């Protein structure tokens, strides 16, 4: 079988595509240069007596550039749609477009539903008023859907991400699978890596690792940061001094050194990551306990059952998170029994736990500083004074008065921080720390591919571009959210 080219029978479109890109780039450059000289457009008097600036050359150029941009988007859509129909007939891109069909459908459904009901969806709905935010959201959701569908339901992937195929070592993108049987996917869409595994399938599987760990770790970091940052900002004084000193202590550590110290097999043996997990993961439980108690403590008949149900569930989740095979810590010196295996519903392999804990540990001091700063600012507001006059408890004021009013910057930072966590996970993988070497996550794949970079770059370039696009999407999303939350 012939190897696939990038665009297959759509190759005729490539020339149009490159011309369009060249024109677009030229247009933008000329536009920038024109904006540097003062505009010379005259003023035109309209019939109703209003005065309007003539568009002049700059206006005309802007018009052209806009249409070129639309043409560019339309051409990409053409590639995509034709690719979905023609499959590998439209080359590697076509094959990928067809493989990712469920993702496209999910994206279209999400966008059409959200745009239809955007007025009723609060800040999330407002996101769809900003182009930048929508682009970012689309990229992020693309990877979320790809990760969930590929990682959980085993859709999208063309081959098993761990098995090796003979004769496919370091093969270029689009190489036909040697000795493919009936029913197998016939090509390696993005080529093979140095262990003859399919790069495309590993890319999709790796998306799941990132999409699962990065937001979860960020949520935990936020729980820790909020639970400690609010009292530090609200009470100030000695508590603030001590907590800030500890946060600065962690922040002064070079991240990579910290990773190297925490994520080695020897340290895992001592059980330190497990102790850290036990401490760090308790914060969500504390947070929700205080949150609910401060709100409902005046109605004990409602509060007590609520707390029992919520905290019971959370404690269960907490215990199953930190215990493995029935123990929390187990080495020569210490043995702390945990949840029995039958009740342990969250499988947490030790190497994932270590990565998770270290990422949370690195992120929480920054969140703490942000929350503390916001609390310091907001506690001087009138509504806080009003709540104090009403005689509300300190925790009620912190969690139900200050926190909701700090949500704007926190949501924006949350998006940015997921991106940063993704970068940190990639860093860990890049140094071969934590996750096993066959793990398909992007950092480890880049690490595996970089040795043969100048000969077979595709194995490292694919996950690199994936990581870049996800983080870029998160950054754009945060930018869109910031813009929209500043508007009201």
């Amino acid at each position, binding site marked *: 079988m012939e190897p696939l080219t990038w665009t297959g029978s759509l190759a005729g479109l490539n020339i149009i595509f490159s011309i369009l890109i060249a024109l677009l780039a030229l247009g933008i450059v000329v536009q*920038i240069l024109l904006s540097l000289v003062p505009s010379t457009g005259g003023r035109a008097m309209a019939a109703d007596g209003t005065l309007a600036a003539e568009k002049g050359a700059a206006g005309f150029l802007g018009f052209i550039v806009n249409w070129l941009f639309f043409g560019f988007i339309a051409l990409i859509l053409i590639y995509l749609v034709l690719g979905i129909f023609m499959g590998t007939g439209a080359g590697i891109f076509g094959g990928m477009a067809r493989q990712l069909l469920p993702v496209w459908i999910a994206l279209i459904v999400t966008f059409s539903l959200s745009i239809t009901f955007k007025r009723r969806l609060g800040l999330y709905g407002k996101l769809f008023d900003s182009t930048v935010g929508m682009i970012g959201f689309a990229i992020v959701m693309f990877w979320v859907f790809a990760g969930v569908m590929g990682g959980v339901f085993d859709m999208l992937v063309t081959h098993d991400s761990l098995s090796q195929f003979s004769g496919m070592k370091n093969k270029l993108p689009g190489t036909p699978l040697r000795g493919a049987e009936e029913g197998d996917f016939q090509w390696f869409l993005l080529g093979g890596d140095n262990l003859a595994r399919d790069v495309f399938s590993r890319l999709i599987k790796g998306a799941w690792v990132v999409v699962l760990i990065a937001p979860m770790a960020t949520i935990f970091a936020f729980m820790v940061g909020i639970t400690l940052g609010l009292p530090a900002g609200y009470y100030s004084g000695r508590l603030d001094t001590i907590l800030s000193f500890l946060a600065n202590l962690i922040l002064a550590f070079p991240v990579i050194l910290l990773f190297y110290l925490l994520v080695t097999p*020897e340290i895992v*043996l001592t059980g330190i990551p497990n102790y850290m997990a036990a401490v760090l993961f308790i914060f969500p439980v504390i947070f929700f306990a205080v949150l609910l108690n401060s709100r409902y403590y005046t109605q004990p008949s409602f509060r007590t059952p609520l707390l029992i149900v919520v905290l019971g569930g959370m404690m269960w989740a907490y215990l199953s998170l930190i215990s493995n095979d029935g123990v929390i810590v187990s080495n020569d010196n210490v043995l702390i029994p945990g949840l029995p295996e039958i009740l342990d519903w969250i499988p947490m392999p030790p190497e994932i736990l270590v990565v998770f804990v270290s990422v949370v540990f690195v992120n929480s001091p920054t969140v703490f500083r942000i929350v503390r700063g916001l609390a310091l600012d907001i506690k001087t507001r009138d509504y806080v004074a009003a709540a104090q006059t009403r005689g509300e408890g300190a925790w009620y004021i912190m969690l139900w008065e200050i926190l909701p009013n700090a949500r704007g910057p926190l949501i924006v930072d949350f998006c940015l921080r997921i991106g940063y966590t993704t970068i940190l996970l990639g860093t860990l993988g890049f140094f071969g720390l934590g996750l096993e070497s066959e793990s398909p996550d992007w950092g480890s794949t*880049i690490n595996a591919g970089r040795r043969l970079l*100048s000969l077979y770059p595709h194995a490292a370039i694919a996950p690199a571009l994936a*990581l870049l696009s996800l983080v870029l999407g998160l950054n754009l999303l945060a930018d869109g959210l910031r813009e929209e939350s500043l508007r009201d």
Partner: protein
Amino acid sequence: MGLFIIRRLGVMLLTALCLTFIVFWLTNLYPNLEKLAKTQGNFRMSDEAVASYLGDRGYLQPMPVKFGQWLGVLPGWVTEREEADETFGRCFSAGTPEAERSTFCGVIQGDWGFSTVFKDEVGPTVATRLALTGKLMLCVLLLMVPSALIVGVLAGMREGSKLDRSLSTFSIATTATPEYVSGVIFIAVLASSKFGISPLLAEWGWIDGKTLFLGSATSAMADATFWNFFLPVLTISLYGMGYIARMTRASMTEVMTAQYIRTARLKGVKFSDIVLKHALRNALIAPFTVIMLQIPWLLNGVVIVETLFNYKGFGWLLVQAASNNDIELLLAVSVVSVIVVLVTQLISDIGYVYLNPRIRIS
């Protein structure tokens, strides 16, 4: 001001002490020591042999005592072995006459210890590597700071213009590209003899060698040229640049909406004069802090880039020390990096007060 600096220095010292103690504690945990003994002795040592090896070399003393010895505030350990009739200690090797044996040797005395990986004194090893990284950092700063400031100022002088939007997109893209991603892309596109643009350029005869840039910076340690040194420098600069540029842009847009800029415009001052003479000086106060605080972050980039481009500097040393649990080398490395972090914080605080006359610390 003096009191402020003294207080900051005190906190700095405390932080440095705490951090080194944490590193000390983590590297001196028993599994780490066991690994050290096995790599230094032999891999099939029995548990008793490991224990006696560690005991002889003072590793099994209580943690604070060991830390004190490393600092040089407690006398170093001395082991007298009856059967071999030799005495050696932390501060002297076997066979040193009794008169020349010193009691204290630690960081305070200027003795950083002995590296078990490089079989050399830690002090000179760190110094040579630090010099190499200093060269890299200098080039990075020379490239990063001016270009970030130019991008930020250009983007911020007319908010919302096409130039602003293009440059802002560029800076967002660079902050979203960690070093290991951009480095990989640069090597594949610019430094591969089979892919990217190098084969094309070589075919057209535009470049002499096989590739446009060299994908490994090992040769740059002795003799740095544009050809072998530009890619690592560019890789580190790009990631840090976006953030500084965005901060500069934010501060520039704020200044450009200030009253005195409007006054200058109404008086008919030329736009270029407004930007260069009136706005720039005030707009550069905030980025100064950001640049100083960015230096510790560059350290991360340095570790990644030196590993990727095989440039044997400080970052490479950190990786070697950490992956081999070379305790004394690792401690020296972390002391240096912690000092870098704390000193840059201090400089940024003091510099901010000097640059911004509205802030006074009593």
